[in-house]
């Protein structure tokens, strides 16, 4: 199978994720969409790895998984903290850090 198919799927998933990050306001969903983007990248990496016949891309993908796990931990922690303080779960409302 041509590598193009894999890349097209990867690009589609990435765009779905990016679109979700941009349009959704719930931080939980934004995190999910971020995961989609990361996994799209993983798919592309593994496809390239397969194409080149070495395992560099797979190692890369594993590292991305680890980073994603960390990121989810921090992100979910933040969301729980926001929820505990009864702040609105809405990224548009959380905008105190403006210049």
């Amino acid at each position, binding site marked *: 199978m041509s590598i193009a198919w894999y890349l097209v799927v990867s690009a589609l998933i990435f765009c779905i994720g*990016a679109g979700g*990050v*941009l*349009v959704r*306001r719930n931080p939980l969903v*934004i995190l999910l969409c971020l995961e989609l983007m990361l996994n799209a990248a993983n798919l592309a990496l593994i496809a390239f790895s397969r194409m080149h016949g070495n395992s560099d891309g797979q190692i890369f993908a594993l590292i991305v998984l680890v980073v994603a796990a960390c990121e989810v931990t921090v992100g979910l922690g933040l969301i729980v903290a926001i929820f505990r303080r009864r702040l609105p779960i809405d*990224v*548009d409302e*959380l*905008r*105190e*850090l*403006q*210049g």
Partner: protein
Amino acid sequence: MSTTTWAWLVLLFPLLGTLINGLGYRRLGRGAAGAIGTAAIGLAFVCALGALFSLQGHDAEHRELVSSLWDYAVTGTSGVDAKLSILVDPLSVYMMLVVTGISTLIHLYSVSYMSSDHGYARYFSYLNFFVFSMLVLVLGGNFLMLIVGWAFVGAASYLLISFWYRRGTATQAGIKAFVINVVGDVGLVLGTFFVLRYSGTLDFLGTFRAVEGGAFDAHNGALVAGCLLILVGAFAKSAQIPLHTWLPDAMEGPTPVSSLIHAATMVTAGVYLIARLHPLFEAAPAAADTAAIVGCVTLLIAGTIALTQTDIKRVIAYSTMSQIGYMIMAVGAGGYVAGLFHLMTHAFFKALLFMAAGSIIGAMAGAQSLDKMSGFRKAMPFTFGCFVVGGLALSGVPPFSGFFSKDEILAFVGNRGGWFVALYVVGYIGAFLTAVYTWRMIFRAFWGEPCAEAKELEHGHLAHAEVPTNPANGEVEDTDVGFPGPEHTIAEHAMPMKVAMTLLAIGATVAGLVQIPNVDHVITNFLEPTFADSKYIHDEPGNSLTYFGMALGTVLALLGIALAHRIWVAKPGSAAAWRTRFAPAYHLFVNKWWFDEAIDFFVVRPFAAFGNFSRRTFERVVVEGTLVDGTTSVVRAGSAAVRAIQTGFLRYYAALLLLGGAAVVLYFLIASS
């Protein structure tokens, strides 16, 4: 040890005293601070004696020794031979002895006099620094060291005059002294440039050789201008008209400080400077004549002002001005030995008079006005004795020291002939005034019905102020640091003060005997090597002039004392009659010839107006309006534009990030295809 090593040690000890007292002021107890301060100057005096004996061991032709510790090594680039060097010759050793000797006694006096003051260690640190600065000034072997010492003395005087720094009048007086001294510093530095330009060297001996070698023959105008500018420095330091107004105000400092400023250090610097630079002044007679005339005018004007002052310290201050006028007149006319001789005798009796005045002020619980004092003769016999000795020496009654030195000056000036005769006559008028104002002070303070404080003291109780006040304006003070301490001390109760004053009284009595015309010439012989190149060194006044002068001086002094006795003792109340009879003159004198007002009108106010004008126009508009505000508004406008991007919307940031990433990717795609 070599002569110069002794001289370096003279500099070292006061510096050590300054540092130890200055750095350890928290830990040193009162006794330790006073002991260290006094010992430092005492050791310096011992070393000065060492330098004296060592110097006398050299041949008369080899008594000008230069020692350099450090070369600032700018010779190669700018042609200035800047060195950390000292010149040890009879003149500097003489000055060293006077400065350290009198200062030691003043330190000893201060140990008791300042004993209750908070800030005791600070006081001794400043005092040692003052002496150190003065020693740098008199020992410096080139113009650089001279200027450094000169500026140090000004700074030290500021510190000491404003020693009671919470007293408004004292800080103002300190600032005034400092500013006027800086005017003098500027004159000295500019004058040095004029001299350096054609002599090519900063070194004193090198400069003198250049003058002798004719470096200024074609540029005598530059030399005269340089000497006149140097004179500005000398006049400011030595309180000569019109730069004298700081001196009476300097009485705001503690009394031993006045004693130090007036007797041993500071005001004698101008006399020393002219004597030190005598080859320059002899090559520029116009400048030397200016000095003589200004000295003469000063001695007369200061004498008249002293007649009318009621603050006991100010009377002595104006008398110092007057006596320094004699010295400046002497060295300006070429009578260096006579001027320096008077410098030495004056140091003795003026230090003594100030110490005695300090003792009376102590008995008056800080009050200084002669109007309040009277009849202290029985209550304070020792102080009275010191005052009489100092007063006799100051008025020039034989055989006290002032008689011989003042007479030598006047005989020398009279012997110059020509228009110097006018100075000679004014000098004798000044001598008469000296006797009158000195004895006016003594009669008013010691004769008459005893005042309350004197009566109490006769019963053994020292007056004590219920509420401490500033004697100048009556403001209420406390006795914490920054104000005088709670207790006052008088000489009768304090051994160190008594010792210091006794030694000075002996000096004031006998110091003149070292130089009696036709009998002995100790000072002339000693100073001869320094002034050997002077064209006036062999100008000895004839016997007739000398003896006539001595007789005239004695008669005038006794007449002055008699007049003072008549006005203030025999016929009390006649002073008021004199005041009304000579009302215009009285107003002139009591207002100090309006010098303060004139300087205020002609210098201070124009400068203040110019400053205010510049502030309103240049500073407000150009500096503040354009430069400062302009810069901030540019930065503010720029940051406002950048700040607008920071909306706080997370999704907005994410969109920008994506767009940016996409743009980069697109760029590489397009670039690679």
